[in-house]
């Protein structure tokens, strides 16, 4: 013990120097926005590259399931195409107008990190600014909602998962259009709460909940889940338990939705 103190005393100059430098750097990174952003970007890149490696292994193990899912999706898409070809009207219109009227653009991305057991869950995607991702884009998987892109670096993006107490999604009951705000319960990864639905709305267990499209992040009609239970709350509103249609435990590939008209809509709304 004594020799330890002697040793510390001998190198006290170096030790103090290192301590003060660490302190200054922590101040630097915490207080200056530019340095903070550069530091966050750097850590995101490093963490992202590690997650990619870990994910490659995980991906290999779930290849069969993934194949099955892709086959099903292919099937569904083929069906849609067939049905469009049957009607001449839609066919022609789609050729004339798709490019001008395109409002949402989809990009596929792969999840390389995911968590479901915290109160504020985040996902990491393997695409970033260079692949066209921007903050505030919606993320869906197989037509059902996953989350919203929060931060992007050159090659990676972080997504606020729907399983995050801070995220509220504007959603509505599909059959009659009553809308409210959906928020995760924080308990298990399968249930969320839809609030602000008035008592006179006619709802039943099993009704479908979809996004309302008011937020300019998600298009209208992205599947959220199904009503599993509801009760009166506070006199004039229902509190509805929603069973989420996305299984966050086995997410792998997702689609990122870019709204091409988002800035236009926000600008218009801010002008009020």
């Amino acid at each position, binding site marked *: 013990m004594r020799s330890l103190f002697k040793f510390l005393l001998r190198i006290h100059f170096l030790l103090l120097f290192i301590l003060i430098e660490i302190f200054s*750097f922590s101040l630097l990174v915490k207080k200056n926005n530019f340095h903070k952003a550069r530091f966050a970007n750097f850590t995101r890149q490093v963490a992202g590259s590690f997650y990619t490696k870990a994910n490659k292994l995980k991906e290999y193990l779930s290849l069969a399931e993934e194949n099955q899912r892709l086959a099903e999706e292919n099937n569904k898409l083929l069906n849609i195409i067939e049905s469009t070809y049957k009607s001449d009207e839609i066919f022609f219109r789609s050729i004339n107008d798709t490019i001008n009227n395109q409002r949402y653009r989809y990009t596929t991305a792969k999840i390389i990190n995911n968590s479901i057991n915290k109160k504020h869950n985040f996902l990491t995607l393997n695409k970033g600014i260079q692949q066209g991702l921007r903050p505030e884009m919606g993320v869906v998987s197989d037509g059902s909602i996953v989350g919203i892109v929060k931060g992007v670096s050159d090659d990676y993006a972080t997504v606020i998962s729907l399983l995050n107490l801070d995220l509220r999604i504007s959603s509505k009951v599909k059959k009659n259009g009553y809308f409210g705000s959906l928020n995760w319960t924080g308990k298990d990864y399968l249930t969320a709460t839809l609030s602000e639905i008035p008592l006179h709305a006619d709802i039943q267990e099993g009704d479908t909940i979809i996004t309302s499209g008011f937020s300019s992040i998600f298009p209208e009609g992205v599947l959220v889940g199904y009503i599993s239970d509801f009760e009166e709350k506070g006199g004039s509103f229902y509190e509805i338990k929603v069973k989420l249609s996305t299984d966050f435990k086995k997410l792998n590939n997702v689609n990122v939705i870019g709204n091409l008209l988002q800035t236009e809509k926000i600008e218009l709304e801010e002008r009020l």
Partner: protein
Amino acid sequence: MIKFFSKYLLTFILLVFLQVFILNNIQFSGYINPYIYVLFILALPFETPKWVLLIIAFALGLMIDLFSSTVGMHSSATVFMAFLRPYILKVISPRDGYESETLPQLRYYGASWFIRYSAILIFSHHTFLFFIEVFRFSSFFATFARVFLSSIFTIILVLISQYFYRKDTRK
């Protein structure tokens, strides 16, 4: 003793004010920002305990930081420079070592010793500072040009200040 401290305290305040209110507002062509405040670390007596040196350097850097809202930048660079000072003093010491009752100033050890001493420390300080400021190595040569030009200006200012000292003490 009190006179001794008050002299250094006055220099400290004077240098911070000079740096913050005059030199920080001067921009020669975007490449040259002299940082005269490091003169305070250069001018501390030889016998200053090493740990005091670091703490003074941190306080000085932090003062400049608070006024230019770059918390941590100047303080880390100044502490780095203070850390180097004892080693540099050892490396470039004259043959008979440093005499007591003398200060690291031009009039005691001559121009060539003083220029070597201040140039090494100022250059290391500026290198550290400017690289911390841009926080990347990609534009290395542009940053290096800034370091080089600013160092030259700071050294010139520090040399001029030495002649002020001289007049001061003779009075």
